[in-house]
């Protein structure tokens, strides 16, 4: 009985910590999320809302705070869950003051570039817009915009300026070719020494 009670208490504590760790932005579009395996330095979030399809265009807004000088978060788009890892992976990492991004489709090695136009706020926070086109007429294409304009993070990028030509990273411009595509309709975020502040989807901006 005591063991069962302790498990329940532990579970409640984990949930409470997770809520502190994950602040949902106050937006109608945000869907309920399922949290699994949340730890202090390494967490995985599997979102309960499904993507538009296995082959679709998706737009994600992700806000995060890099806690350490070497930390990262990974967006898994169009996958079937962490046990399969069969989606498009976009890993955004901090290396001192530099922000790097790695993109990979299932079964292939990632392509890597520095997001030189993306600047982190002094407190380590960063807000990105990531658009993933998967298995549609444009093949797999990934676009990233820095969503914060001021270094203090006071202003967000005006949504009217989000378009193909203003993207801070465009996999097509980089010349990256993805030989496979995501196999599922779920999305999730994995963090390593990163506090996830916000994560939601919007209708895509690029067609």
């Amino acid at each position, binding site marked *: 009985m005591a063991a069962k009670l302790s498990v329940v208490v532990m579970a409640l504590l984990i949930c409470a910590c997770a809520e502190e760790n994950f602040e949902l932005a106050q937006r109608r579009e945000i869907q309920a999320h399922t949290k699994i395996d949340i730890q202090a330095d390494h967490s995985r979030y599997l979102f309960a809302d499904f993507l*538009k399809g296995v082959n679709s265009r998706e737009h994600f807004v992700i806000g995060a705070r890099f806690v350490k000088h070497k930390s990262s978060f990974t967006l898994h788009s169009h996958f*079937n869950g962490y046990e399969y890892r069969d989606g498009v992976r976009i890993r955004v990492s901090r290396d001192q003051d530099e922000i790097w991004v790695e993109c990979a489709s299932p079964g292939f090695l990632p392509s890597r570039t520095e997001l030189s136009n993306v600047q982190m706020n002094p407190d380590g926070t960063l807000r990105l817009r990531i658009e993933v086109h998967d298995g549609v007429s444009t093949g797999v294409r990934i676009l990233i915009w820095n969503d914060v304009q001021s270094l203090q993070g006071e202003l967000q990028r005006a949504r009217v300026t989000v378009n193909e030509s203003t993207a801070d990273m465009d996999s097509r411009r980089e010349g990256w070719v993805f030989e496979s595509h995501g196999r599922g309709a779920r999305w999730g975020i994995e963090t390593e020494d990163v506090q996830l502040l916000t994560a939601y989807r919007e209708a895509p901006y690029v067609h």
Partner: protein
Amino acid sequence: MFIRSAFYFSLVLAGAFSALAQESGTSVVALPEDAAGKPYEIEFEIEYRAQEDRRSERPQTKTRHSLHEIALGGHYRIEKTIGVRGEMAVESDGREQRFFVKEALILYSPWENYVEARIGQQFLPVGLVNERDDWFSSNPGFMEKIFTAEKSIDLGVVTVFRPYNQEWIFLEGGVFSGRVLREEDERSGSPEKTPRVLSLKSKSEFHDAFLTYFEHDYAYFDPVRAFGGGFELRSPRHWPVRGEFMIEHWRFQEIQSAGPDVDNQAWLLHGRVEWWRLGLGHRFSQNNSHLRTVNSRFALPTEVSRLSYVDFKIAEPFLIRGEAIKEVQDEVVRDELVARALLSWEI
């Protein structure tokens, strides 16, 4: 590319060979001689389009307008059993122009009214909507899932078989090349399985009906297998108030070799009322999708598209049309007003 170039070249040669062809005494069904006995027809079309994205804080919010399309086409009856038809167009989406050949066909009818073959670049005869070029400013989203593009044009052969020498019931089958150009690296790829379509159809002045099976396995895309059926009813042209009603239903699967399949059920309804030179209509479509794994089934967000329009024929070749489009999947994906001016001449 070579195959296409060779095919277009063969169209030019077809005229020369026709002089050597024997008179067979049969007639071409697809290219009937008009009342004046003219063996050819030339068409010229221009569309001017203005669009406004009504969603707030979107880059497309400001109105875009452009000369959307200029097309030149026509057909020529070489002899009673052979004809050619072609149409080329320059299309602009406001940012870039694209030249493409919509149609480049040889029409061959070896047995009078019983068998007809269309060989060349053409719209895939899948459903009623795909073959109606520029019917609306955009097609419903589920069509992109079936064809991997909003509309589908390909090089292929379509054969029509009319066992009873009439169009009340006939068979139509087609096979296409299925080569696609990947936009990422502009590399073209051959399909694992060429697109193929088989239909049982019925046609008259007042109706169109079809039952169709269509499948493909394009390079770089998931294979698709689709079953569809539908009909359109039209009132007689001489009625003062005329009407049209169309319904299409599609069940199709996006099949994955290493992952769950997606089952789709899509509906399309269209109604139109016409009086004098004025037309009013509404198109509705819905696609319900499910992700199917070995032991579970999950509903994906339903895709709903509504399009209302009004058009006015100023003169015989000149039509203006206003369309209001709203597409929702989870949230508003498209909310647009489109104004179109269409001018089409026939010589």
